[in-house]
């Protein structure tokens, strides 16, 4: 299973803050997961069109080619605005 989290404005756009998902066949990295999620259509397609989408794998900032494995925690969010 993957644990997927969505934060801030992205959470509102998608209408949910988290989900559990079996690692889809053929998905090996973050870019693959984004393509898989966006293929659901509707608001999910926004994942591929959003400028500045950020992501983390196991609570570390990640890149499109960051590898995914079953059990990982993946988070998607807009650029951070703390401080």
């Amino acid at each position: 299973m993957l644990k997927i989290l969505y934060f801030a404005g992205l959470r509102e756009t998608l209408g949910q803050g988290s989900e559990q998902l079996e690692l889809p066949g053929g998905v090996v990295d973050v870019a693959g997961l984004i393509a898989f999620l966006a293929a659901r259509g509707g608001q999910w397609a926004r994942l591929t069109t959003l400028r500045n989408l950020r992501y983390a794998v196991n609570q570390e900032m990640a890149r499109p080619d960051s590898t995914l494995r079953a059990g990982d925690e993946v988070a998607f969010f807009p650029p951070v605005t703390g401080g």
Partner: protein
Amino acid sequence: MAVRVQEADFDVGAELAALRQGNRQIGALASFVGLVRDVNDGVGVSEMTLEHYPGMTEKALATIVSEAGQRWPILDALVIHRVGRLLPTDQIVLVAVAGSHRGDVFAACQFIMDYLKTRAPFWKREMTSAGARWVDARAADDQAAERWQG
């Protein structure tokens, strides 16, 4: 070195006193306090809600403080960042750095704030006279962080 993420307010004087207590090597203590303003991008702000990514936030802050400790010979550092609902004039964040000399602690304090602004997973949502809005990241914050690289 310590990082705290909390809803409660903090007492700057008490935190600074605790940070330097009993350490006779400390000759310089720099601090920064970030506050909620009542205006942003020309629009009045009546309140703000800070969301974060529990778990990753603490790790990201600890990593930033640790990196500051590798770049400058500092003796101690503290980061407190509030989350939840905040009002104009409320304190949001405290960064304090203690060391032997002012140059190192000034630089390390600024470095920690610049990296916090661009790498720690916090998001601000403002309530304004024109409705609620998520605060956009600023290019100036990215530029401020980039000047510490290379």
